[in-house]
């Protein structure tokens, strides 16, 4: 038989996948390894999906998504970020934020274009860049900067081939955020070098130190930014597979081409439910955010008590403690912890080499679950420290 695609074969499988296989073998393990909310989708949003089905809304929608939904997305961005998009030409509804990342990169990159990817970060940026013919240029973010992207780091990574910066904040896996002041400095460099930004803001509603600022809201940035967001994290709708991209018309037009040939349209039921989420879901978001925040504080306090080194993250639902003092790699630590205490956490290296020495611990779990897991972590660490 003839060989398969070299490009694909050369892409490393997700580091998370490997760990997943080990964990699935382990019976009765408890997990802090999940990157999705533990809440079910709020009932009024689910009910809207049921109504949509009852009313027979079972057809394709327009490629770009239900018009009403695109208008609500624009309203949402207006009220939270004070930015305006034309719902007809500048907003595209996608199958999760992940699709938007993929087609955004494909719409912008030519072969050999460099894409700056700060890591640790979500697992798909690097492979999607390669699939789109781009060349990933990795910035290894530092714990001492709270895993924020600094202007110096960015400036040093830029070459005359740089086409785009991926800006993944609030960040999975570190929980880091970029505040307005940080973004203003980054924006100056981006404008100076005339590069695009793909801003993945899927965790935008989950911040615990003031509201999230989108880089698109900074002067001169909207015209060069693909803003990506979605419903998975803020409204606990991961299984509905619904996200969106907002960008200048010329970019959205190209993205829509890929979307219409590869996907056709995002799931219809999900789109109608999402309208309800944007219209009447603020209260749910706030309640979930408060729950996450309590768990976040709980973890930070327990880490402090057990002497586990961790910067205080203000976004998403992850903490990213440092385990360098124990003389093990992240993977060794995570495996040993799983074998001895039956708790699954994700090694930081699943999100890039700079994740070495760290663990991603998700607090998208009930307090009961967190308590048990953290008690076990405390016990585990006590033994290691002896």
């Amino acid at each position, binding site marked *: 038989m003839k060989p398969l695609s070299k490009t694909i074969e050369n892409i490393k499988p*997700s580091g*998370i996948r490997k*760990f*997943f296989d080990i*964990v*699935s073998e382990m019976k009765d*393990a408890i*997990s802090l*390894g*999940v*990157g*999705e909310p*533990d809440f079910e989708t709020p009932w009024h949003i689910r009910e809207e999906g049921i109504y949509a089905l009852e009313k027979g809304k079972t057809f394709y929608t327009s490629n770009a998504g239900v018009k009403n939904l695109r208008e609500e997305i624009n309203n949402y961005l207006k009220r939270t970020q004070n930015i305006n998009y034309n719902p007809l030409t500048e907003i595209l509804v996608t199958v999760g934020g992940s699709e938007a990342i993929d087609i955004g990169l494909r719409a912008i990159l030519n072969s050999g274009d460099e894409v700056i990817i700060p890591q640790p970060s*979500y*697992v*798909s940026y690097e492979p999607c860049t390669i699939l789109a013919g781009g060349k990933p240029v990795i910035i290894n973010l530092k714990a001492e900067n709270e895993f924020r992207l600094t202007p110096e780091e960015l400036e040093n990574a830029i070459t005359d081939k740089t086409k785009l910066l991926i800006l993944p904040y609030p960040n*999975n896996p570190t929980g880091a955020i970029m505040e307005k002041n940080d973004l203003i400095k980054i924006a100056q460099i981006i404008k100076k070098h005339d590069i695009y930004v793909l801003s993945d803001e899927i965790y935008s509603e989950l911040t615990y130190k003031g509201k999230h600022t989108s880089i698109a809201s900074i002067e001169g940035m909207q015209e060069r930014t693909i803003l990506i967001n979605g419903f998975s994290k803020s409204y606990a709708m991961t299984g509905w597979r619904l996200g969106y991209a907002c960008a200048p018309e010329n970019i959205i037009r190209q993205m829509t081409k890929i979307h219409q040939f590869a996907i056709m349209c995002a799931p219809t039921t999900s789109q109608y439910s999402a309208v309800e989420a944007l219209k009447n879901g603020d209260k749910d978001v706030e309640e979930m955010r*408060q729950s996450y925040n*309590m*768990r976040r*504080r*709980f973890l*930070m*306090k*327990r880490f402090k008590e057990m002497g586990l080194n961790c910067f205080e993250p203000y976004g998403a639902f992850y903490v990213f403690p440092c385990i360098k003092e124990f003389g093990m790699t992240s993977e060794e630590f995570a495996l040993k912890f799983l074998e001895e205490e039956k708790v*699954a956490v*994700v090694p930081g290296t*699943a999100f890039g080499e700079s994740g070495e020495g760290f663990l991603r611990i998700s607090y998208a779990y009930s*307090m009961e679950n967190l*308590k048990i897991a953290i008690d076990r972590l405390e016990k585990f660490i006590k033994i290691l420290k002896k």
Partner: protein
Amino acid sequence: MREELLTIIEKNSRIGLRDLSAMLGREEIDVANEIANLEKEGVICGYHTLINWEKTSLEKVTALIEVKVTPQRGQGFDKIAERLYNYPEVKSVYLISGGFDLLVTLEEKSLKEISNFVSDKLSTLDRVLSTATHFILKKYKDHGTIVNKAANEQEREMITP
């Protein structure tokens, strides 16, 4: 911290001080003081347990009784409400807007005892004009808790990106 604290213990009054203070990001002593204040001020009125008596061998019958009354000059509905809520078998008394005045929840061991209460005690009160008794056949949700919720099998994967 007050509202946040109340939100947590309204759902779980048994939570320990250590966890509670960690969740609130406060010192244990501060949280303990705040709880003491809330109790003193009558914001926290009690710590109860939600029990599904149907799963026990004890028989309980619950009725909701709509009561129409004549309010008293100078005291409105308060006096008549007091006459009612002093009965230990009366579980709750609300003043209601709409077609009747007081909504009384009554818990007894049998239907007969409820009917005795209504005919002997309630209807004979001076100011009571009429009553309508509704027996509760099944409790689906109580105090924000779904009573017979099937154990929610977490269908989430163990590890996801």
